């Protein structure tokens, strides 16, 4: 049991720091560059992301192991997972509007953006490829969400300062954001080798 626990802890650390989705797997870049201009939006996005990621990895694990493997239709996993995520996002949208109206007006817009995001789809796909157990899938979802949140918050705090800097004209906007991301990614390579799974 203790061994299991260590494995789960390792999974969370590795998904959030060593194999950080943004800096080493390069997923979710569109959203990463899109919402990291302001601190407030990036915090909202991080919370929504982590929650949706955990729920979707749980639901898609259940569907994958109890429905798709017995029926031998694992080759349809892309279509099924996209459907699951779109349905989930729609459901949480409706539930949030009824149950937590104030929260809905704060985070609602991010929910709509999430359904076509590659990170959210990548988590169930990786879970299925790596044959994680149910608890491990949950841990992987949580770790990935935390890693994405960390990346967004670091980036947003840098970009808020960058607004005041005098950037050469061709670099203004996105090119500069890319160069900054490269520097952060370089720092993140320092984490590699921290834990070997």
């Amino acid at each position: 049991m203790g061994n299991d626990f260590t494995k789960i802890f390792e999974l969370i650390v590795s998904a959030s720091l060593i194999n950080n989705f943004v800096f080493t797997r390069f997923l979710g870049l569109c959203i990463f560059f899109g919402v990291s201009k302001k601190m407030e939006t990036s915090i909202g996005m991080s919370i929504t992301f982590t929650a949706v990621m955990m729920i979707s990895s749980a639901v898609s694990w259940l569907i994958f192991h109890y429905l798709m493997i017995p029926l031998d239709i694992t080759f349809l996993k892309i279509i099924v997972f996209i459907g699951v995520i779109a349905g989930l996002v729609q459901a949480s949208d409706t539930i949030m509007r009824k149950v937590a109206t104030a929260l809905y007006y704060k985070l609602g817009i991010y929910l709509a953006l999430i359904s076509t995001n590659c990170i959210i789809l990548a988590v169930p796909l990786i879970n299925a490829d790596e044959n994680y157990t149910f608890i491990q899938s949950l841990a992987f979802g949580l770790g990935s969400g935390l890693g994405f949140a960390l990346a967004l918050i670091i980036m947003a705090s840098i970009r808020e300062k960058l607004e005041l800097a005098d950037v050469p004209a061709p670099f203004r906007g996105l090119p500069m954001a890319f160069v900054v991301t490269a520097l952060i990614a370089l720092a993140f390579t320092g984490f590699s080798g921290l834990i070997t799974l």
Partner: protein
Amino acid sequence: MASTSKVSYWELIKNGITKDNTIFKLALSLCPSIAVTNKLENGVLMGVAVLFVQVTVNTTISLMRKVIHPRVRLPIFMLVISGWVTVTSMMMNAFAPEVYKQMGLYIQLIVAFASILARAEMFASKNTVLPSMFDGIGMGLGFMFALTVISFFRELLGKGSLWGIPIVNAKPLLIMILPAGGFFAVGLLMAFFNWIDIRFFKKSPSGSAH
């Protein structure tokens, strides 16, 4: 959009490569532009996969555009896209298993490309089959062009080789094939294309593409 269909097919292709270039100009679908471009071979193959999906999706959607009810169009577009992506990923797995092992995840994630959905929504659902097909070819070629340029520089500088064949006999810049190098390469290339726009076409800096 009657006027758009008057635009010649050549124009459609040219727009996709230059004015509406997915990566350098619209800044969409950035994930694979960094993830798979550490080798020229991978970059080109990814480009071919996207080109194939973009053309087939555009053609299918424009064939079906009269029978799709506008209210359910997005789920149907997603279904069509994921169907064609499944076909592509299975074909890659069969014909290029070595490459597929390295970038299978990214091929599967073509489903989530904003650019493919955007072209289906903005162009293919409003135009006839032939223009939609050429629009798909243009956008796909533009994407392929971007991936080829990025992976060309990254492999040349990071490994000193092209398509696996050694070219430069010097100590390579390891950083270019590391993740950070990908961000550097895309950032510098974007700045370069912005500079061309400002210097030769007297355009004001586009700033953020969002």
